[in-house]
């Protein structure tokens, strides 16, 4: 296989390669002085558009290493129209990504159905302290400024879904506008006035209705003037619009509340503690701090329950849904209360090797492979045993 050049020629050729390279420019990038030019799709850091987040928890659940932390609570939005139903909606309290754990797979960005998560090519956020790699909501929101617009797709690519829809819609509108213009032109021809048909089409009246995706023109103009990219300006303007809208709704709600004080939400004064719980915990030997936190949580819970009961007794409209999570004070204390009832997972079943013959036969009959049938049957057996034990305990 070895090349059959005379000895020494190979050595000289090698010298030629290196000396030629010496007079070509080096490819080194002097990094801190020269920043790398990264493509828009680069997975550098995850940015959060928190206005778009609906706390659906999809990202957190799909994350392979569980590095996304989300806390939220529910708020009741008063009915928009009088006599309507009050709605509840999730309010994001905390959204944090631990970049010390993150493996940059991008699944969270991919699964987010509401366009709340984006990749940014920004990468300079290393820290001396690993704790600081936990980016909270505010910091994640700041990364939004660095999110570049998505690159144009290759010529051979299908247009992305939303663009295809938009094109279709635009075409329809264009058709409609043309038809309308033609009609108007005909009408105006009759009235011996003939402005350009195009003008008429362009002068379509602005929609008075407020739509999602509307932007706050003022903010948009200001940001553009500040030199931000159009994309960022647009997104911020959207956010500003949403914020304004929220403000408006809140004001409306307050006005309504002032008009009808009875409809006020059950409110609990924070800061107070449930003395009973506190004493009990102290007696159990917990630290004062822990006890205080738990007692606070207990107080809040009790008060809420009380208020809710009162509200229900009063029979006032819809019942307020119980918060899904325990009180936020308790979550902060970092310890979930152990549940009193035995859970299935806690029950130990002896003899894991046995199989549930019935299931096994059924599976074999349905044409499953023996291996799968066996494993499923095993699982079925364990499940049964557990159920039996639980039943037994329940009886006792």
């Amino acid at each position, binding site marked *: 296989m070895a090349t059959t050049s005379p000895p020494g020629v190979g050595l000289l050729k090698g*010298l030629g390669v*290196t000396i030629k*390279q*010496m*007079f070509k420019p*080096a*490819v*080194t990038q002097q990094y801190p002085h020269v920043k790398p030019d990264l493509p828009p799709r680069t997975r550098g850091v995850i940015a959060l558009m928190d206005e778009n987040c609906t706390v659906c928890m999809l990202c957190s659940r799909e994350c392979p290493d569980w590095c996304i932390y989300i806390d939220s609570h529910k708020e009741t939005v008063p009915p928009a129209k009088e006599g309507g139903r009050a709605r509840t909606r999730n309010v994001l309290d905390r959204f944090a990504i631990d970049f010390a754990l993150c493996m940059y797979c991008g699944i969270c960005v991919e699964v987010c159905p509401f366009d709340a998560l984006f990749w940014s090519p920004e990468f300079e956020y290393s820290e001396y302290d690993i704790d600081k790699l936990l980016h909270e909501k505010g910091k994640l929101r700041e990364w939004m400024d660095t999110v570049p617009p998505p690159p144009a797709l290759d010529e051979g690519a299908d247009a992305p879904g939303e663009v295809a829809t938009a094109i279709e819609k635009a075409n329809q509108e264009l058709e409609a506008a043309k038809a309308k213009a033609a009609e108007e032109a005909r009408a105006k021809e009759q009235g011996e006035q003939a402005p350009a048909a195009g003008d008429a089409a362009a002068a379509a009246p602005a929609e008075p209705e407020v739509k999602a995706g509307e932007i706050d023109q003022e903010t948009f103009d200001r940001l553009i003037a500040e030199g931000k990219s159009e994309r960022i300006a647009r997104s911020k303007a959207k956010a500003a619009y949403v914020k304004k809208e929220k403000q408006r709704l809140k004001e409306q709600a307050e006005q309504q509340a002032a008009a009808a004080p009875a409809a006020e939400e059950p409110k609990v004064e924070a800061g107070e503690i449930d003395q009973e719980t506190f004493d009990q915990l102290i007696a159990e030997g917990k630290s004062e701090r822990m006890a205080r936190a738990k007692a606070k949580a207990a107080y809040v819970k009790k008060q809420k329950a009380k208020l809710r009961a009162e509200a229900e007794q009063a029979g006032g409209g819809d019942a307020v849904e119980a918060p899904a999570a325990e009180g936020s004070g308790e979550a902060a204390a970092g310890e979930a209360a152990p549940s009193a009832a035995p859970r299935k997972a806690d029950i130990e079943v002896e003899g894991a090797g046995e199989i549930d013959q019935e299931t096994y036969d059924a599976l074999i009959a349905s044409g499953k492979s023996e291996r799968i049938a066996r494993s499923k049957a095993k699982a079925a057996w364990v499940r049964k045993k557990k159920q039996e034990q639980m039943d037994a305990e329940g009886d006792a």
Partner: protein
Amino acid sequence: MSIAEMANAAAGLAQFSPAPSLLEIGDSFWLSAVLKIAVVLAVFFVVPLVVGYMEHKVMGHQQARLGPMEAGPHGSLQLVADGIKFIQKEDLIPSAADKWVFAIAPGVAMVPAILIFLVLPLGPGIWGVDFELGLFYALAVGSVTTLGILMGGWASANKFSLIGGLRAAAQLIAYELPLILAGIAVALQAGTLSLVGIVEAQSTFFIPGTEINLWYLFPQILGFGIFFIAAMAELARPPFDMPIADSELVFGYMTEYTGIKYAMYMLTEYAGMVSMSALMVVLYLGGWQLLPGVPMPGCGGSGNIFDCNALGVGLGVAVTLGKIMLLTFLMVWARTTYPRLREDQLQRFSWLVLVPLSLLNLAIIAVAKGVF
């Protein structure tokens, strides 16, 4: 070559009169001694750093990179920064090591490297001592470095270090022979072992029938090649760096060394590059002479290369350093280009190729000397 010719050639060695060094201050022995030591140490510590910087940059650009850029303008103080770092580092001695031998080994390797600089002529009148046996002295002292390497390799109590030390010793012994044989051919032609004398001899070696002098590079191009390869092998420079082959032996005899001791080994290597290059400059490239047949500006006629004014001295030193840089550049170039050989291939190359060739070279020179 007849015995009578050999005797005549040897007799030529006897006609020696040491040339004066400009570093002599009046008649004071001690003052001039201090001055000489200062100059030798300054050269020992500064020139290897310059060579090291050159290596960084040349390697960088030959590898499509820039090399160091941060410490000093264009990274020129990188090695100074490295030196400071080495001093700050913890001085570790492995618990199983022979502490005493481990500690003095880098010194044993470094001291001979300094001593060689004593006889190297850097310019007209710029040398420590014009020793009658200069060439022999340089090669003899240089061979002691082996001992320091072997000591370090053994004392580290590390298998990789031991193998590295043994390889270094085997390599140094194998390449001592062609190195000395090539050097002897030059001494034979020049009729002296004094390094200054050899430079002088090259200023009076004319192309037959003309007044144009020649360097020994031209008659002894074979000897130069042998000396260059043997010098690289002796210094364990790539492609002959088996003693420290990082992919095989981690770092050979230097594996366990840290901090200042490691720095001493490294300095020894670079000082070795400089001293070997300086020897080659003296033996084959006419020392501080500008170009063959071109008289030195600032010096007396072409016949006298010692009678120089300040310009001539400065130019002479610059020319010597420039030639040293050229030779070290060649060594660096080889380092970036070649993979390393295997120890046994290197040994075979020495015994089967270089030694016979150097003997042939010696014979040619001796016959030529007898004929002309």
